[in-house]
């Protein structure tokens, strides 16, 4: 008490002293801003040698589309530009870019040499008039989309302080045919829905594909030979491997963050338990041993913990345990049931599907179960997956009715900027890869 009074007095003295003796600058606290997408001018990539090929324009469009799609940027319509950038060698006239409200300016040029392209690019802050990034990439023509995504990621990083997520892929289940006899095939595409590739024929039912951390393999569930088992698909060699020989049905697989292990469920009687399998020596390790349905495991990014769903309390709820299976604690306590937990690559949040009053919602909560927040709500939303920067989620949404089907959506973790990802047909079970390059 006396201590507190003393402290208070000291503070008072200091305040008096400060206000009378020092003639400091006026201080103003600003705590409310104006959140809006940042206006950015993206000038057409200069291509003096081969302008007629249109590659410069294509790259420009992909960069602008990536940034606009993030919801954090507002690429200014080029028709409004008062100036153009013809060369990267000299500084632009910043004033003419400020006049059109551009807070940042991006310009690039293509140089074709020895069957390869080189793209030099620069990013400026138009108000402080300083260069934020100046770099180049060398690439062969068929990689132009990747290059555009990589550059968009760089811009995103320099202006938001967070890693980008544009140079990534999505593994998903491509669905076709009538609802009663739907054909499901393993597929991958770029995160913007471009370059979709079907990986399996559709003869066997496949579900829950998950990317390996290096993006080269998929682990998934297939009903090949009638018995549901976990398989690995090597994207480059197009080879399929079965993961171990288990006595029952294995499902809900996922890679460990280092890519060396797979964690999954094994059916045991009426319930299921979690197992971890080492891909180096095929050792398997039991993590749970109860008669409940324990499934949908997901590692924390540091591999120290595992989140999973279990019905040990009567309904499906989320639990976290140490990576060796000890110290199981329940983290979800809201009304309804919780499933498909996925730990954010940032480590802060866990995304989940919540079923309450007949509605399927996607939500996030902190890893200790606090701060639950529903991000999207509706007839049927399921299966969240995280962008590598932990800022955006994808999930699939089923539409009701005979002709209804699943489509993939992306949404910011704030719940804003929900967008449908264009796919050739119905698509479900998305899995977001890490950055590819």
């Amino acid at each position: 008490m006396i201590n507190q009074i003393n402290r208070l007095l000291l503070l008072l003295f200091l305040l008096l002293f400060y206000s009378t003796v020092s003639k400091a600058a006026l201080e103003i606290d600003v705590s409310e801003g104006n959140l809006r997408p940042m206006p950015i001018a993206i000038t057409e990539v200069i291509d003096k040698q081969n302008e007629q090929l249109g590659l410069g324009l294509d790259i420009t469009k992909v960069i602008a589309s990536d940034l606009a799609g993030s919801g954090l940027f507002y690429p200014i319509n080029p028709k409004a530009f008062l100036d153009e950038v013809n060369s990267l060698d000299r500084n632009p006239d910043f004033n003419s870019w400020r006049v059109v409200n551009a807070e940042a300016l991006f310009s690039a040029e293509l140089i074709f040499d020895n069957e390869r392209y080189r793209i030099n690019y620069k990013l400026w802050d138009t108000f402080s008039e300083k260069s934020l990034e100046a770099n180049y990439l060398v690439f062969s023509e068929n990689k132009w989309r990747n290059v555009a995504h990589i550059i968009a990621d760089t811009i995103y990083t320099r202006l938001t302080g967070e890693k980008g997520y544009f140079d990534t892929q999505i593994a998903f289940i491509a669905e076709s045919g009538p609802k009663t006899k739907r054909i499901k095939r393993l597929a991958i595409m770029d995160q913007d829905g471009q370059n979709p590739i079907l990986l399996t024929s559709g003869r066997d039912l496949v579900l829950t594909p998950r990317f390996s951390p290096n993006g080269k393999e998929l682990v998934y569930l297939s009903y090949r030979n009638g018995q549901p088992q976990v398989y690995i698909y090597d994207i480059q060699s197009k080879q399929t491997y079965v993961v171990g020989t288990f006595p029952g049905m294995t499902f809900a697989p996922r890679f460990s963050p280092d890519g060396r292990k797979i964690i999954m469920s094994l059916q045991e009687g009426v319930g299921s338990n979690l197992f971890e399998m080492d891909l180096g020596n095929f050792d398997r390790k039991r993590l749970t041993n109860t008669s409940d349905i324990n499934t949908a495991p997901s590692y924390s990014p540091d591999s120290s913990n595992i989140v999973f769903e279990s019905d040990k309390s009567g309904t499906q709820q989320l639990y976290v345990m140490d990576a060796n299976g000890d110290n199981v604690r329940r983290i979800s306590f809201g009304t309804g049931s919780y499933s498909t937990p996925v730990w954010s690559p940032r480590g802060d949040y866990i995304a989940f599907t919540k079923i309450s009053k007949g509605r399927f919602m996607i939500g996030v909560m902190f890893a200790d179960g606090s701060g639950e927040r529903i991000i999207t709500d509706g007839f049927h939303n399921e299966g969240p997956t995280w962008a590598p920067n932990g800022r955006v989620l994808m999930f699939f949404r089923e539409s009701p009715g005979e002709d209804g089907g699943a489509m993939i959506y992306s949404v910011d973790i704030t719940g804003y900027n929900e967008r449908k990802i264009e796919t050739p047909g119905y698509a479900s079970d998305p899995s977001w890869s890490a950055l590819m390059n």
Partner: protein
Amino acid sequence: MLAKPISISVILHLLFVVIIITGMPSFDRFEEAPMSIVEIELINNLPAITQEIIEDDSKQESASNKKKYSATPNVKPSMRSEDSKNMNILENEEPIEKTTKAEYQEDENIMEFFSTPEIKPELNKINDKLLTNLDYDENKKETEKVTALLDKFPDEKDVGEMIDKKPQEKNLTSDAIITAGEISNMRSQIEMCWNPPVGVRGAASQRVQVMITLNSDGTISKVEPVTRNTNGSREVAINAAVRAVLSCAPYEFPIEKYELWKEIKFTFDPRNMLGG
């Protein structure tokens, strides 16, 4: 060994605290005595004044609106007590005659809504008691004061003149201070332009300080981040703050107080916006 000095220190500190709380002893306090009564009286007079203003400004304004903006519920109980002296006072100023009968009934409904019948008589009593303590002259005096205050509000023509004269009229005095309203005006100018990064890890805790030096025309002569750039996300937050300061310039601050706003240290704290 230190017990004595500490206890002396504690007593002195306590004395100091008591002085802070109660204020310095005053020898002419008796002058302050009747103040509280005036306050209460003022409140009771307000409806009459607002009533007049409403009547003058827009006669079409609906009865329900009038009720919303005037404090009639506070007054009505005392009006209903017929033997109150204040009934006469209020009648002299004719606020009640101007309210229609229907409106009056609605007011009663509102009274019922806001205060239970058990409380109503109590309210009447208190108001009556307070009002009977006042004589009409005092009442009138206060009314005149308020009216005088209201009269001080210039009409449109006067405002135009005042703005024209402003720079000449006000002297640049060394003891001039920036008022809370002016600070709030400065703040709102910069808030428009501040678009803090929302995506970064710990975005809400990215508190950034920027020192700016201004020219007297409101343009910026120097911007310097006070916060040190320690990592990528901090740098983005600093850039956003600098951009806010630069993109909002020139600023419209009172020219006669230039010495006071020549240098401003802005603290950008996104915690309120982004949660944290």
